[in-house]
């Protein structure tokens, strides 16, 4: 398989400063992380606040550069300043707050912003805008003001803006943290669809355990290191270990785990309501 992201022995430190601006210490946010991600993967990154997951994500498109170690996007080393624009085009980022990412007065202009800056010819910009808005299901809103959209719709516009740059990879840093349940579902379904139909690699950072079950791989970070790595089912089978990292499991997984402790013959790592219903109905 084709590796789209390769991280080798990444260390990232930032300095702490005293009142006089002198360096008083260093904080190691990423501590010797190695990770390879395949083209087309859907990887969820979990970890408590301060575990290093956002810092890791910011290395994937050269917003941050390694203190030690190397990050490659495709064949490009993110430290190579000549490639920085290629890297940012191929690995797009979507952030938490929908209101901080939209700049234009009209939805379609916002989506066109990225390709326009890349110097894409005008006709092709419009083709890309059409296709991207269709991909996120926002075509009907193309001439509206972003102000009038819901949070979930704004995030879909932000995603369309990234898609219009034809990236290999979308990195999302808690894209649903500020959304209501409907908005959350909207964004996650959009991203799944892009992953499935366009083959775009997705790296999703989230605190919502229910969103993780759609990934094909889950990476758990703690103290700047990768402490767990596996399929959602493997990861969510380890309930106590997850809790020790300040994380949790979906409510239905927790219930299955509790029932199993009471002696019910259930498999490990139940992820959905349907799975638990089927497992229980085998016996009663």
């Amino acid at each position, binding site marked *: 398989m084709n590796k789209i992201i390769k991280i080798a022995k990444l260390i990232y430190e930032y300095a702490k400063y005293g009142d006089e601006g002198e360096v008083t210490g260093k904080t190691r946010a990423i501590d010797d992380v190695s990770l390879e991600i395949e083209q087309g993967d859907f990887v969820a990154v979990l*970890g*408590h*606040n*301060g*575990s290093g997951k956002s810092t890791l994500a910011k290395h994937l498109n050269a917003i941050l550069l390694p203190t030690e170690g190397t990050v490659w996007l495709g064949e490009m080393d993110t430290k190579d300043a000549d490639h920085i624009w290629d890297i940012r085009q191929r690995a797009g980022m979507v952030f*938490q707050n929908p209101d901080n990412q939209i700049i234009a007065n009209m939805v379609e202009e916002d989506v066109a912003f990225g390709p326009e800056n890349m110097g894409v010819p005008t006709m092709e910009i419009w083709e890309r805008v059409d296709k991207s808005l269709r991909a996120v299901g926002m075509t009907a809103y193309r001439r509206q003001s972003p102000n009038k959209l*819901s*949070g*979930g719709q704004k995030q879909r516009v932000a995603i369309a803006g990234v898609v219009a740059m034809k990236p290999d990879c979308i990195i999302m840093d*808690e894209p649903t*943290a*500020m*959304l*209501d*349940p*409907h*908005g*959350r579902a909207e964004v996650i379904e959009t991203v799944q669809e892009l992953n499935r139909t366009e083959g775009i690699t997705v790296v999703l950072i989230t*605190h919502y*355990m*229910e969103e993780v079950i759609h990934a094909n791989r889950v990476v758990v970070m703690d103290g700047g290191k990768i402490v767990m790595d596996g399929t959602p089912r493997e990861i969510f089978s380890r309930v106590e270990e997850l*809790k020790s990292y*300040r*994380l*949790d499991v*979906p*409510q*239905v997984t*927790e*219930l299955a785990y*509790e*029932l199993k402790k*009471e002696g*019910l013959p259930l498999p490990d790592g139940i992820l959905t*309501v*349907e799975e*638990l*219903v089927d497992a*229980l*109905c085998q*016996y*009663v």
Partner: protein
Amino acid sequence: MSIRLDKVDYIYEPDTAFPVHALDHVSLTIRDGEFIGLMGHTGSGKSTLIQHLNGLVRPTSGTIYYNDRDIHGEGFSLKELRSKVGLVFQYPEHQLFEADVFSDVCFGPKNLGLEKEEIQRRARHALELVGMDESFYSLSPFELSGGQKRRVAIAGVLAMEPEVLILDEPTAGLDPMGRDEILEQVKRLHEENHITIILVSHSMEDMARYAGRLIVMDHGKVQFDGTPVEVFRHYKELEKMGLAAPQVTYLMHSLREKGWDVNVDAITVAQAKQEIMRVWKKH
């Protein structure tokens, strides 16, 4: 203490071509000692509602009573109301601005014009309530984790010694343990300090676990008002409003459809477990 809304309307941009009816004839009473969960999708009117409760926004029509007194009536002090009804906004840590934790928490009571000793007593007590001991007092807010910053911000409101505490999505952006820590603190404030709580949240699981009464807003109206069990029975209507029920509620309904004799009112993991074990043991 009670807050009563009588036919409250709030219209944004009333004299333009696009008036928005953010609150549409809302009448409800919040009684002393309640733990209320306030739900609704983005734009449903819940934030507008809470801004009415401490007089930040004035209704277009209708009346709001605090202890049976009209809060916009003559001689009523909104300043005093705001110390009684504390409002913790979304991402309250963005509002921390002092050089150290203790000074930040002192800011509110200082503005009430209290004596220095009383200010410090309140700040110490408020920080104690959110579980932050003296070792944090002289730290800069920048040195704290996300969850700690948020607790300091909540302490800043608690130092006003409110009777009612309104929290607008206090767990947004926190990790699961951070979420539990904040909500457990809020629960203690309710149980031990008898503060009336109004919690805005998008987590149905948290609502089921903590609230004694749920109020659901949609299109500026109160659509449901009852115990969590009562409200989550309407899970299909909740979905149409962009909301949902806790995951275990769906499980219980599916099991019932498959012929299990479970009580579909289970809304927490503990209740669902008890119900499933009860049916299991009968077989």
